[in-house]
């Protein structure tokens, strides 16, 4: 008996061997990575194409083994995740943009017409020229995201920053658009971008797992899981029993924002039992520093003598019992200092005041955090508190793993500071397998910074702009110390942050986005209305106004209050999704003010659907460039051009360079030869010339590949990147090896703050200089700061950490909404990819407690309506007993167009910053790129939910 097999169907009659042979056929194999903002990512894939079409990709498993003489750690491989594995399909997906589009109806009508690039450039440039003439360049804004335009072609996360900055427009600080800041670590260390190698997590004896690395660190978490097999203990601390808690030795089900109570309780036990690293405490922290009891400020030399140093602090010499000035240029102590005691000093006006140490004040603060009190506040039982204290007792090496939710939690600074207290008491900083982490990126940004910065004409005419930029970055840090501050004791980290700050201030284009939200997008009113914090001495607007009046944000408030944004360039970003309240206040208040909205993206985002022009940007495998490098993995990973740019898509740089040329033409035709942005004069006929580095790198793919080549080459000459095989670092070398080593200590602020050298092949951890060379920290006291003597913090009773009840945000509703990254996307990248959608519920979902759901008559997969006084959204419900009864968990980043009514959960988040984060005027409470600004908090926003009135 035979059955007719369909002769036209090649699969039906295939033998197994033939079916096998099918998946081995390709005619091109190139290196690829995904230039998205997962962190650290940097996963080297091989990308396969046949007949000009990408057919698949595969994790290459080619990170070299470690060759460290002192430490044995598992190797890095394989490195990759399920998202990277389907880009070959997603890049051709139904959401992919191929042609320039212009809206053919009202904004959001869904009517689009395809236009030529020429028309797109001309119309957009013309409108931007209009805006510059009528309103000034600061009416043009750039909201750039992290959808990986290559870092070598454009500078940082996209060429749009350079483009808008060149015009004198406003570029918003990406780190505060997102909120990937570590406020508590910043306040403690004077920096947050210390990034230990992921391999060092393996070396800890105790890993405290905050955040959710099972979701957000797929290629890296194996180091934490493997640490358990060498005997380390993993402690997960989270309000719900998330995916990471399932792998822990201990999960602490901590109540809302109660982590500070927990850690203060631990610190009390450590002190009561004498489980302390006293040497570390004395040498590295402000615990011995003297504080005036009368005004709670540090004792300063200026208090003792007229005209003396405002930044000279003191400790008690145990030999004499007298206060001695602490050295500013070194942590090495010339005397043994006291931790305990009270003394009297005579001030310059002859008044006698009592002084004591930070340590004494800390002990007083800790007195109330008994195990019983901690239990009451945090829900963590005294048995678990005792176990936790045992697990951090010296000499155990303790590493606190975090991702970036503290910057998105209102009292996240207290959370981070509180575990830093534990690290300080136990000496867990600056050794392999200890400390905590922030994120760091981009020694290669310096090349791109050359795009933004004011490169002298001579260099553009005859010099090497890339090498110049790299050499200058070292020089300006030295100049900051020597000439600007005239203080040779300034540590390198502070010099790097400070030099960058002053340069950016002069550039007049960078602004933390809080000023956009506050002045122009309607959030001033929203935050005063929807933040109910009985513990805050002032409303947010009061903090904001006071900080402005004090001049604490001078040079960084753009656009000015008086300048309404009129033009917005959105590249690789999705503001209507990402801004808290994006589809709510932001859309209703800011969007109507904008006369021009241009989106650069490889795909249709919600923001694009509300824009005027949508320009197709090329995607990862379509042009050669690199993902940003980071000390966490210490490789620059390269993506080659495997297939030509799809459709009519172009690189971000090509697009913005072409726009720059047209704007120059338009302005010159209108007789505009110069104009000002603040004090900065912009010479119109130089715009394009500067953009091409003096005509060196034009708009063709070949030009841009030369730029990639020359950037790598310059980085190699500086010794900051090294080829894998000892050959010269060129594009050809990257095409061969797919990656290059990071090396040394690039003079880019995010690498200087590592305070350690990178040695290819060896493990890496930060703050070695502090421990090994006694180099000071970049803080006010030059030490790890447990005590913050800024007047605002004293007023708020947060000079020392304490537990503070989470405020009501969004309304008085009894439940809390928490979030984090989805498994299924990197921000909104890939979130609507078929390969991803098939693997969950196919649309947004939220976790709710199963018992509570039943009480509310909600079944699994029902639509629920989630609401507070600020907004509401509808989503599918997933029931789980691992979710707290008073919680709803929804991960990001679903597109608004995946929700009924297009209202995403982000729409009910008012996103208030914490008022204290407007503080300034003080070393180290000073804004610079990525460091120290208010961001929108959203975790633990108040909500309630009910079954929605929608058909199933």
């Amino acid at each position, binding site marked *: 008996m035979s059955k007719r097999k369909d002769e036209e*169907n090649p*699969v039906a009659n*295939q033998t197994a061997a033939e079916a*096998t042979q099918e998946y081995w056929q390709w005619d091109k194999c190139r290196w690829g990575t995904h230039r998205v903002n997962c962190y650290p990512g940097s996963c080297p894939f091989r990308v396969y194409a046949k007949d000009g079409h990408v057919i698949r990709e595969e994790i290459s498993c080619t990170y070299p083994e470690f060759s460290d003489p002192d430490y044995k750690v598992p190797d890095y491989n394989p490195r990759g995740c399920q998202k990277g594995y389907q880009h070959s399909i997603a890049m051709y997906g139904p959401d992919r943009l191929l042609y320039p589009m212009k809206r053919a109806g009202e904004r959001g*009508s869904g009517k689009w017409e395809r236009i030529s690039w020429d028309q797109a450039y001309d119309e957009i440039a013309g409108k931007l020229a209009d805006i510059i003439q009528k309103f000034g360049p600061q009416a043009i804004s750039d909201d750039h995201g992290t959808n990986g335009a290559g870092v070598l072609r454009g500078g940082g996360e996209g060429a749009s920053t350079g483009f808008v900055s060149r015009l004198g427009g406003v570029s918003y600080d990406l780190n505060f658009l997102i909120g990937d800041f570590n406020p508590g670590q910043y306040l403690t260390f004077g920096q947050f971008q210390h990034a230990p190698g992921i391999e060092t997590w393996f070396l800890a004896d105790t890993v405290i797992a905050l955040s959710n690395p099972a979701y957000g660190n797929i290629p890296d978490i194996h180091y934490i*899981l493997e640490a358990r097999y060498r005997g380390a203990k993993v402690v997960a601390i989270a309000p719900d029993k998330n995916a990471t808690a399932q792998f822990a030795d201990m*999960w602490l089900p901590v109540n809302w924002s109660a982590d500070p109570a927990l850690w203060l309780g631990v610190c009390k036990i450590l002190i009561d039992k004498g489980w302390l690293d006293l040497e570390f405490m004395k040498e590295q922290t402000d615990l011995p520093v003297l504080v005036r009891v009368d005004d709670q400020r540090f004792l300063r030399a200026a208090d003792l003598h007229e005209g003396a140093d405002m930044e000279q602090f003191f400790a008690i010499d145990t030999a004499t019992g007298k206060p001695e000035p602490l050295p500013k240029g070194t942590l090495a102590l010339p005397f043994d200092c006291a931790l305990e005691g009270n003394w009297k000093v005579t001030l310059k006006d002859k008044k006698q005041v009592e002084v004591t140490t930070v340590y004494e004040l800390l002990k007083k603060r800790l007195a109330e955090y008994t195990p019983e009190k901690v239990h009451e506040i945090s829900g963590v039982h005294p048995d678990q508190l005792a176990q936790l204290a045992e697990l951090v007792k010296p000499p155990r090496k303790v590493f606190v793993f975090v991702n970036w939710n503290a910057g998105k939690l209102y009292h996240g600074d207290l959370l981070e500071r509180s575990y830093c207290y534990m690290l300080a008491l136990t000496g867990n900083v600056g050794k392999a397998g200890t400390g905590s982490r922030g994120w760091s990126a981009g020694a290669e940004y310096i090349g791109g910074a050359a795009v933004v910065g004011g490169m002298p004409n001579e260099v553009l005419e005859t010099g090497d702009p890339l090498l110049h930029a790299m050499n200058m970055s070292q020089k300006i840090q030295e100049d900051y110390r020597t000439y600007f501050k005239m203080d040779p004791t300034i540590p390198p980290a502070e010099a790097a942050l400070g030099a960058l700050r002053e340069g950016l201030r002069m550039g007049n284009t960078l602004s933390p986005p809080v000023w956009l939200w506050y002045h122009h997008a309607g959030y001033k009113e929203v935050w005063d209305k929807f933040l109910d914090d009985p513990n805050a001495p002032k409303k947010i607007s009061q903090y904001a106004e006071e900080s402005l009046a004090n001049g604490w944000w001078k040079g960084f408030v753009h656009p000015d209050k008086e300048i309404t944004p009129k033009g917005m360039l959105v590249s690789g970003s999705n503001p209507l999704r990402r801004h808290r309240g994006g589809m709510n206040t932001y859309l209703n208040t800011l969007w109507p003010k904008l006369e021009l909205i241009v989106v650069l993206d490889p795909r249709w985002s919600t923001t694009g659907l509300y824009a005027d022009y949508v320009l197709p940007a090329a995607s990862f495998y379509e042009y050669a460039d690199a993902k940003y490098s980071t000390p966490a993995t210490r490789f620059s990973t390269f993506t080659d051009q495997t297939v030509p740019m799809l459709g009519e898509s172009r690189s971000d740089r090509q697009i913005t360079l072409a726009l720059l040329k047209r704007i120059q033409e338009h302005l010159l035709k209108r007789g505009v030869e110069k104009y000002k942005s603040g004090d900065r004069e912009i010479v119109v006929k130089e715009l394009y010339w500067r953009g091409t580095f003096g005509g060196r790198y034009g708009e063709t793919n070949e030009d841009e590949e030369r730029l990639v080549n020359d950037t790598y080459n310059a980085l190699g000459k500086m010794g900051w990147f090294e080829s894998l095989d000892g050959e010269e670092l060129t594009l050809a070398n990257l095409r061969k090896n797919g990656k290059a080593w990071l090396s040394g200590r690039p003079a880019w602020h995010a690498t200087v703050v590592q305070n350690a050298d990178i040695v290819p092949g060896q493990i890496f951890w930060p703050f070695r200089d502090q421990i090994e060379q006694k180099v000071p920290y970049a803080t006010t006291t030059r030490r790890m700061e447990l005590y913050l003597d800024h007047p605002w913090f004293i007023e708020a009773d947060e000079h020392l950490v304490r537990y503070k009840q989470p405020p009501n945000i969004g309304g008085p509703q009894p439940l809390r909404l928490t979030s984090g990254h989805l498994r299924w996307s990197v921000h909104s990248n890939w979130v609507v990819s078929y390969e991803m959608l098939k*693997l969950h519920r196919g649309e947004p979902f939220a976790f709710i407690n199963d018992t509570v759901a039943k009480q509310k008559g909600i079944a699994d997969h029902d639509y629920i309506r989630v609401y507070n006084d600020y907004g509401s959204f509808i989503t599918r419900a997933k029931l789980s007993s691992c979710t707290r009864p008073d919680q709803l968990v929804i991960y990001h980043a679903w597109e608004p167009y995946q929700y009924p009514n297009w209202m995403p959960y982000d729409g009910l988040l008012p996103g208030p910053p914490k008022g204290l984060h407007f503080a300034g005027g003080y070393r180290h409470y000073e804004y610079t790129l990525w460091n120290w600004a208010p961001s929108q908090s959203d975790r633990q926003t108040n909500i309630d939910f009910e079954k929605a009135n929608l058909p199933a």
Partner: protein
Amino acid sequence: MSKRQLAMVINLDKCIGCQTCTVACSTHRLNHPGTEMLRYIWCETKPGEGWPKGWMELGRKVPDRVRDYGGTWNFNWDEVYTNPVGAKYLHPVTKETGEPVKWGPIWEEDQGAGQWPNGYFFYMPRLCNHCTDAPCIAVCQDHFARGGGMPSSQGNGHKNSLHKREEDGIVVIDPSSCDECGLCAAECPYKIPMENIVAGTYEMCDFCAGRVENNYAPVCAKSCPARGMYFGYLDDKESFVAKLVNEYKVALPLRPDYNTGPNVYYIPPFIRPTTFGADNKPTGQADIPADLLRKYFGPGLDQAMVTLKEHRARAERGEQSELMDLLIIYKWAEAFTPFKVEAPVDPIEQGTDAGKGLKAGKGLQS
């Protein structure tokens, strides 16, 4: 029994449910017509009904395409992009019925069981077990003996579609002779074979036989970011799989009571947080009930847990433990010996010799 047997070990104490194995397989193998809803490997959240739905209770039933697998999911991107904002939203619809989707391979992600604060879950990838006593092969042979099936275009003399390869124990389906009778899906207690109605055959994981023949490890195993998968020959005493399965006996079969002799083994999740009593007092008991793990992994479970915990305790004391080193895998490529983990670069040419070429027509030939 075949001359040699390849085996896979999956460490559930490390599996983070990322679905990298699922997607690596999908984009490597599931891109021919009819595979939109097919999976050769996927990772379930346990406990739960799994995929197909309630497979452990299906007995000899062939799973229903819509009720048990969830059907084919269609999405409406174009509608979203060509209508006014807010008018249409992107969501799935079951192609077969036009109804909203009600099940899928990863439907139960992170739900688990228990009661707050003692809820719990773990992850468990599932794929063909390449059983030593594969019931799918037996029933396929029987079906052909009774006149079922079709002539194979392989011309290799085998009378039935399903066959176990002599040289490595991989169970493969010959698509040309399969007549979609579904008896393999009925007999397989794990419900692994799935019907491709476009290609007119059942399909399932073949341990990436084509890769294996060219000395590359299966794509799922070499892609696991948690480094939780091992692959090798069970008779190779130095292989990680042999040590974990036979020497330390910590890698256990799934539902050994099905008596099929599966060759995918699981290390049970053994490092778990405690349950809580009143006032969140820790009880010291692991959260996953031992009964559940015994049901899944059989009588070897208890000793395996003792061994794993004892060896971890040695590591805590600073003592050497080969078992813990096998779980750490300092040099990760060793977990796949003799197979390569690097991705191939040069296209595989047909007809060239071993290591560089595809062995043409190997398929069902012994």
